[in-house]
């Protein structure tokens, strides 16, 4: 019986530095520094700012995500750079590198860490949707996450090519091109459209809600402090979509109340021309009225509405 040939021992790693420690220490230092910088320096300046409850929650979410992502990104980049520098092929070295073996401890670690991070983000994201009343995206006509306030200020946002107008049903239903909101008050936005699809994006408020014809899309925000609100349409809506923006203002409750009451009085005659306040407005009302006018023998612009089969239909 032939004697067994002993298996040669694996190549010894004697003399090799402790690569794990050499990566871990700078990773720890850089990660701690990054987290501190993100949380204490970057966080207060992250978009969309902290002007409203929805905006502040979005800012917090971004900061938390950045804090979680920074150590991961630093580890990847650090390892990448370390491998490039330390394990690069030396000049004249034609030998294969040592065989790669699995490392159960490392594999288990990254699986557990990844699982923990993903599960945490799932729970965190769900909680943040709830805590931020839908995070400003609009929840349709029957919102799940409400402000819980019994009588919030209602502001209807009406999209139309190419301007947003705002109705205040608790002040006689007047409609204006000026968006004015009070601080420290829950606002319930009812976002809709009377023609095509728009998107009401009030940047500093953290509100970005679709404005669809025939849909009442509800979003919530509580304004924390006074300032200017930039409003843009965030849905391509025709030729002048790019010019569909305006600026609103957040003012003190007393200033808002004074403005709303004065505007209600000033626009009394205009309000009488408007249809009664409703959560949505039927876009076919006007063509129906046009047909009625034509049927009554009144002159109208030729063609009125193009039928769907019209060759000019885009």
């Amino acid at each position, binding site marked *: 019986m032939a004697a067994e040939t002993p298996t040669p021992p694996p190549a010894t790693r004697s003399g090799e530095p402790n690569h794990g420690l050499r990566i871990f220490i700078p990773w720890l230092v850089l990660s701690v520094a990054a987290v501190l910088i993100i949380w204490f320096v970057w966080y207060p300046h992250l978009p969309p700012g902290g002007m409203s409850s929805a905006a502040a929650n979005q800012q917090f979410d971004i900061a938390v995500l950045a804090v979680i992502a920074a150590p991961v990104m630093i580890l990847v980049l650090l390892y990448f750079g370390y491998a490039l520098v330390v394990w690069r092929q030396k000049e004249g070295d034609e030998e294969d590198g040592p065989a790669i073996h699995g490392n159960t401890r490392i594999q288990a670690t990254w699986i557990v860490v990844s699982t923990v991070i993903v599960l945490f983000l799932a729970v965190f994201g769900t909680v943040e949707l709830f805590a931020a009343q839908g995070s400003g995206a609009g929840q349709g006509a029957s919102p799940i996450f409400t402000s819980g306030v019994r009588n919030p200020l209602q502001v209807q946002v*009406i999209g*139309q*090519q*190419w*301007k947003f*107008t705002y109705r205040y049903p608790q002040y006689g239903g007047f*409609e204006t*091109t000026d968006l004015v909101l009070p601080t420290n008050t829950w606002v319930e936005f009812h976002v809709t459209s*009377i*023609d*095509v699809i728009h998107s009401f994006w009030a940047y500093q408020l953290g509100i970005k809600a679709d404005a669809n*014809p025939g849909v009442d899309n509800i979003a919530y925000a509580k304004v924390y402090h006074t300032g200017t609100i930039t409003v843009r349409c965030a849905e391509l*809506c*025709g*030729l*002048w979509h790019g*010019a569909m923006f305006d600026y609103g203002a957040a003012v003190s409750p007393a200033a808002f109340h004074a403005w709303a009451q004065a505007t209600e009085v000033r*626009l009394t*005659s*205009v309000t009488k*021309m*408007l*249809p009664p306040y409703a959560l949505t407005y039927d*876009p*076919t009302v*006007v*063509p129906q*009225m*046009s047909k009625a*006018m*034509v049927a*009554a*023998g*009144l*002159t*109208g*612009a*030729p*063609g*009125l*509405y*193009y039928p769907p089969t019209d060759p*000019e*239909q*885009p």
Partner: protein
Amino acid sequence: MSLPARVSLLVVAFLAVVAIGAFVVLHYFLSGPTTIDYASGVTPNTGAVVHVVMQEDPQNTVSTKPDWVSYFIQDPKTKAWVHTTLFRVPAGSRIDMTIYGFDGCTPLRNPVWGQVTGTIGNVEYVNGKPYHQINSWSGCNVGHTFSIPGINLNVPMATPGLIQSAKPGLCATSPCQPGNPKQVPYRVMTFSFNTPHATGEYFWQCRVPCGGGFVTGFGGPMQTIGFMTGNMDVVS
């Protein structure tokens, strides 16, 4: 095919492609309505008065889309009506606007645009009579609007308010000629507004889905420069 013939064919084909490309660029991308200049000879930012004259017609008979409603602008030098919606005005000036309304009525999609805003005194004059608002849903009152959102200007355009069987009917040949309303009915809208000191292009539009609208939005002339929307170029 001989080599010279093949080379010639290749050269001709190449030139044909270049020519087609040049035609497309020149005809479709670089061409467009002319800009009527109301700014030359006027010192900007002095509050100078500039008189701009326009008209809106039930149709235009001067383009490939004759059934589209359209604005026209009067050239201040030649007094000719030009089929365009682009005009240039000096910054920091007062614009005295006259618009002849030849078109019939169509209800506003949103009657809130029946109010006059952004003009001096928030007023327009229709045949000399002051109006702060016109209700387009209460009758055959409004044909179009002249609106410049960038300066919060909105002026509803009144209509002759005719019935279809009226004689004479609406102007049928563009550009319409203001003259005897008993021959060609129309309304005259006048209003004034101040141009901003900030130079730039301020788009203007009609807010009535007037004959070129779809149930779910503007189309045709409403979104075509040269018809029912355009630019006010403010220069200094």
